[in-house]
């Protein structure tokens, strides 16, 4: 049986990589993918604690997170298509309409 600690540490590592990708990447689609990576890391922690506590609440919560992620992906990619159509670029630095 793998200790719960290992899963939580792996989850933290994946979340950290997701945060770094979110800050570092410049392509808006890749930034969006790093959000999905962070959600996946949180899901892993949920399932690990669900197993450790012997309750299924965590797994049910993961299903809700996946549903919300699917909805978020649909709306987010719609927004990305709109941005790409209006700005002719996927670079987030070109999306600077609010900049003074």
């Amino acid at each position: 049986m793998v200790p719960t600690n290992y899963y939580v540490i792996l989850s933290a590592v994946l979340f950290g990589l997701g945060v770094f990708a979110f800050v570092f990447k410049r392509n808006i689609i890749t930034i969006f993918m790093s959000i999905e990576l962070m959600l996946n890391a949180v899901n892993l922690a949920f399932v690990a604690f669900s197993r450790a506590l012997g309750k299924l609440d965590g797994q049910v919560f993961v299903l809700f997170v996946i549903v919300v992620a699917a909805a978020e992906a649909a709306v987010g990619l719609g927004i990305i298509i709109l941005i790409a159509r209006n700005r002719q670029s996927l670079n987030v630095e070109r999306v600077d309409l609010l900049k003074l």
Partner: protein
Amino acid sequence: MTAPLAVFFVLAALAVIGAVNLILQKHPIHSALSLIVVMVALAGLYLLMGAEFVAAVQIIVYGGAIMVLFVLVIMLLNAGIEEHTSISKLAGVPGLLLVAALAGFIAATIARSTDVVQAAQQTGDMSSTKGISNMLFRDFVYPFELTSFLILVAIMGAVVLAQREKS
């Protein structure tokens, strides 16, 4: 080393390599493919934890539906190699600092709470699919219905956002 531990390390290494590759790759389609590797590795980890329903949903919804949507949009928009300006290279420095602070915070939290988690281990059986369906359609039936409404709104929003302007 026991067999589950060996499987865990293989899958964990696969997930971390995929996540690092997501950052290193310049082209979004390569990043998307390495994200699929992460998701499949995580599905394997869910199986290892005895959460077979979550593993199946992970493969079908994340690895299937969401990533297909991503790849489709990358192809639709003909996304090219990402360009880094001098300012965006500087963004890596606060990024690293942020990740270091976050990692320190998470490590401190884990170090403080390990004994609690380990004490509660080895309890309950995890015949997960039956238990999950019982909880989902009994205790969480109103949130479950709300998610169907959320999906409906999201679909309509995506259609409205992505449709071509009539002019």
